């Protein structure tokens, strides 16, 4: 009979920049059980809501996560705007959509690079990140920041993009589409990549539903779930369908994310073609009163923003529930019974963001 051993994994691990710790119970190189623990990077951002005015809090909420910073800022604004019944101008809604979809492309390209790095394909990693760089340049040119934009504010957005700027963005996206197609072939057809991904960490449809998975993780198991479908912002006017796969393994999750990059490019092109002229912000008057829940589709999945105001300039409570929080149970489930060598791949394919989760 084989002996059981416990191998600690993380919080510092070469494949994973995120501080998550796992106790892996091993039996003959096979994982029997995985016990996750988080709590290494708690910053208490939600508590700050009591000390920062509701208009300044957006700068803090944006810093919950470096990758989906725009989405967090938008989610907070959406929640407080709902609270105060502010109607955002249409042009601002479109601009928000464009920046949010660009964030999705940047997040997925970052993830694809990390995945390539995880299975040891360094040139693929470098090229994914080189393409991502052009998206960061668009951010710097349009918002002033490369990672944190500080461009979303209550009642609209701070900066406008000119017609020439929008045309330039469309041109850049068209340019990277060709390079991305070349990379896609390697990610999806190369045998060495397939050996690491196909059939690894299967999550069935019923498990995905039962464990409340969100985002690409759920869509890779065939669950049609995308918050953008509710038509918030300008999403109601854009034509798109959620990307889903049936297999539920690491390869399917990789495929979903690659297809979403192309989908986001198509959505931005549509938004640029449709964007109306007009104001980009409305003045905000009064103080938030009452409670409101907003949902956003972040690159990693559904995020949840709850705010409650008491008529003062400080919100009473603000709660953010991030997608990784929901995907950890599914990660633990897929880890049971996998090979020890596949553990990094399985953790990577849920695209964990522990900093988001702990806030």
């Amino acid at each position, binding site marked *: 009979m084989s002996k059981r051993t416990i191998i600690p994994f993380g919080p510092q691990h070469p494949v994973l920049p995120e501080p998550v710790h796992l106790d892996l119970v091993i039996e003959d190189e096979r994982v029997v059980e995985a016990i996750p623990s988080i709590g290494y990077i708690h910053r208490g951002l939600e508590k700050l809501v009591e000390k920062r005015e509701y208009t*300044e809090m957006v*700068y803090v909420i944006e810093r919950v996560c470096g990758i989906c910073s725009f989405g967090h800022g938008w989610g907070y604004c959406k929640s407080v705007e709902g609270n105060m019944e502010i109607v955002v101008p249409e042009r601002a809604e479109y601009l928000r959509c464009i920046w949010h979809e660009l964030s999705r492309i940047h997040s997925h390209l970052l993830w694809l690079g990390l995945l390539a790095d995880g299975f040891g394909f360094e040139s693929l990693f470098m*090229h994914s990140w080189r393409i991502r760089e052009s998206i960061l340049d668009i951010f710097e040119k349009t918002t002033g920041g490369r990672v944190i934009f*500080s461009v979303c504010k209550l009642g609209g957005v701070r900066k406008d993009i000119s017609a020439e700027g929008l045309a330039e963005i469309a041109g850049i996206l068209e340019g990277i589409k060709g390079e991305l197609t070349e*990379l896609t072939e*390697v990610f999806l057809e190369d045998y060495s990549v397939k050996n690491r991904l196909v059939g690894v960490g299967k999550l069935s449809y019923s498990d995905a539903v039962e464990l409340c998975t969100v985002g690409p993780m759920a869509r890779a198991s065939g669950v049609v779930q995308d918050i953008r479908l509710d038509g918030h912002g300008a999403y109601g006017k854009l034509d798109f369908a959620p990307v889903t796969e049936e297999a539920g393994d690491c390869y399917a999750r990789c495929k979903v994310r690659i297809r979403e990059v192309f989908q986001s490019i198509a959505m931005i092109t549509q938004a640029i073609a449709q964007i109306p002229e007009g104001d980009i912000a409305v003045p905000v008057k009064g103080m938030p009163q009452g409670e409101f829940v907003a949902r956003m589709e972040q690159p990693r999945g559904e995020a949840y923003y709850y705010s409650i105001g008491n008529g003062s300039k400080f919100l009473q409570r603000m709660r953010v529930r991030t997608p990784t929080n929901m995907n950890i149970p599914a990660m633990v489930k897929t880890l049971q019974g996998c090979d020890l060598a596949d553990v990094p791949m399985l953790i990577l394919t849920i695209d964990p963001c522990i900093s988001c989760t702990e806030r």
Partner: protein
Amino acid sequence: MPVLKIGKMVMGSLFKKPATLMYPVISREWQERTRGQIAIEMDACILCGICMRKCPTDAITVEKASRSWTIQRMQCIQCCCCVEVCPKKCLMNKPEYTTPDIKKISDRFEKPPEEPKPAPAEKPAPAAGEAKAAPAEGAAKPAGATKLEKPAPAPAE
């Protein structure tokens, strides 16, 4: 074959110039909107302290007594909240990052001491004398803002 595809891309990169930049040895091109650092026009500042109260990270200190405006460069997150709320619009965003440093840098800007109030109209002679003295004082601290050469020590955290 996919390997050939990436092979082509990799071989191509061998003959292209690097995609990265040896920053900060080689300076980079800044965009017009780049949020690099906060700059202040001290002449226009009225030391109202709104920027200090609104700053999300408490990076700004305004001291009315010493007529100074101090910013902790490492604490500032370049959100430009202060630029937005400044009633005199004397704060602005400079599209250039601060020089990399291993110490916590802070910049202190001072306003020249307040000019004495002009004397009543019936005594014109002393007023003229004061008016002469004021520019001399201004010349000792040029351009309204004096950047300390030695950074002020950051408060212990």
